[in-house]
């Protein structure tokens, strides 16, 4: 628990700093998905909660806040991937429209909000810039009877933050090489397999999440 508590955090991560009792309370409440009650304990600036509010309440204020944070990043990402400013603008808006309509598909036990938006932006790039279709794996979703557990969500979100921290700690040359791969500037045969990032834990957490999903599907 201590490890979680002393993590420095940005949006979405303050929950780790809650005293354990509060954390436990949050966990139980979250499991019941009683959004209105959760709001009293949890500050508003968690992107996971924003997506929930969009999904459950079609909350335009939550959307506007998400838009304010992510849309300028998506546009920058698309421009670095080779889109003209006007095309990047148009595609960014389409990415955010997709986010709204697909909010119910977001699973916080498998991805951070930034990661999920990245996948939408990446697919938009493939579609609009490369004019290709993007085959996606079979969708796995929680059944109506089940929900991911709050502890799984917290650990996964924490792991995502750790990757971001590890990225910024990389030698700049290596970080730039990784970025190049993600901006589409390297072909798959030019990609270095050794990222230098600690991905072992997140991989095992994701495997766990997937096996739980498979169980609920049966």
């Amino acid at each position, binding site marked *: 628990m201590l490890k979680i508590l002393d993590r420095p955090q940005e949006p979405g991560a303050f929950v780790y700093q809650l005293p354990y009792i509060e954390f436990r309370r949050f966990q139980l409440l979250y499991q019941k998905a009683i959004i209105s009650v959760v709001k009293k304990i949890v500050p508003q600036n968690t992107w996971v909660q924003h997506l929930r509010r969009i999904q459950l309440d079609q909350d335009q204020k939550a959307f506007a806040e998400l838009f304010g944070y992510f849309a300028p990043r998506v546009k920058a990402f698309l421009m670095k991937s080779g889109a003209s400013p006007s095309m990047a603008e148009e595609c960014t808006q389409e990415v955010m*429209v997709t986010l709204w309509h697909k909010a119910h598909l977001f699973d916080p036990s498998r991805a951070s909000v930034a990661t999920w938006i990245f996948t939408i932006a990446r697919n938009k790039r493939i579609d609009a810039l490369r004019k290709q279709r993007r085959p996606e794996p079979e969708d796995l979703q929680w059944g109506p009877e089940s929900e991911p557990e709050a502890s799984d969500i917290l650990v996964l979100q924490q792991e995502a933050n750790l990757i971001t921290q590890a990225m910024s700690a990389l030698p700049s040359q290596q970080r730039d090489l990784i970025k190049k791969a993600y901006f589409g500037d390297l072909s798959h045969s030019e990609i270095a397999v050794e990222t230098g990032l600690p991905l072992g834990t997140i991989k095992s957490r994701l495997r766990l999440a997937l096996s739980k999903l498979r169980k609920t599907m049966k």
Partner: protein
Amino acid sequence: MNEMTQIKHHLTDQILIGYSAGTLPEAFSLVVATHLSMCDTCRASAQAYEAIGGSILDTETQTTLEADALAGTLAMIAKGSIATKPTVVSDVPTPLRDYVGGSLRDVKWRSVGMGVRQAVLKTSKTATARLLYIPAGAIVPDHGHRGTELTLVLQGAFRDETALFSAGDVEVANEDLNHTPVAEIGEDCICLAATDAPLRFNSWIPRIAQPFLRI
């Protein structure tokens, strides 16, 4: 879903990073997405690599949007929802379903000689995807690779000099691999294969006939 636990041959990290970064040719992505539908190990890896993309996006410099961008986006949202595709029962994983037009029964096979059949799937031209149908016990002739070739077993199994590949397994072959895959006895073998080397039908047909002529 039984085969999931038995998958022995996985995608390489290089391919998985390429898939997560979105830089693979469509034909490769099709093989990857189909394998990920069967294999949670590779799926977890691909999602971990997507998390790298997420942190790049999160820490990226920002570019200003047009003043009316949010209003424009909300207007688009108000126009309506995204149509969801109806679920179709099929004997192939979802990503492949769209390319074969339903299920394996709907595949338009073309004979390439000696009982071996293939169907080229429509993808972007930078790489080629095709289904291969190899009758039980039949030989796919000795062939080298000019580029990268991914071969995913959908049904049955084949064996080559390196290993046995069963349903769900994927073989990643590079230029240095020269092999002679043989379908196992007992069940016809169906594979989904993708290569970024140009497909040469003219030379492929005589080559496929060769081993049989020698018998």
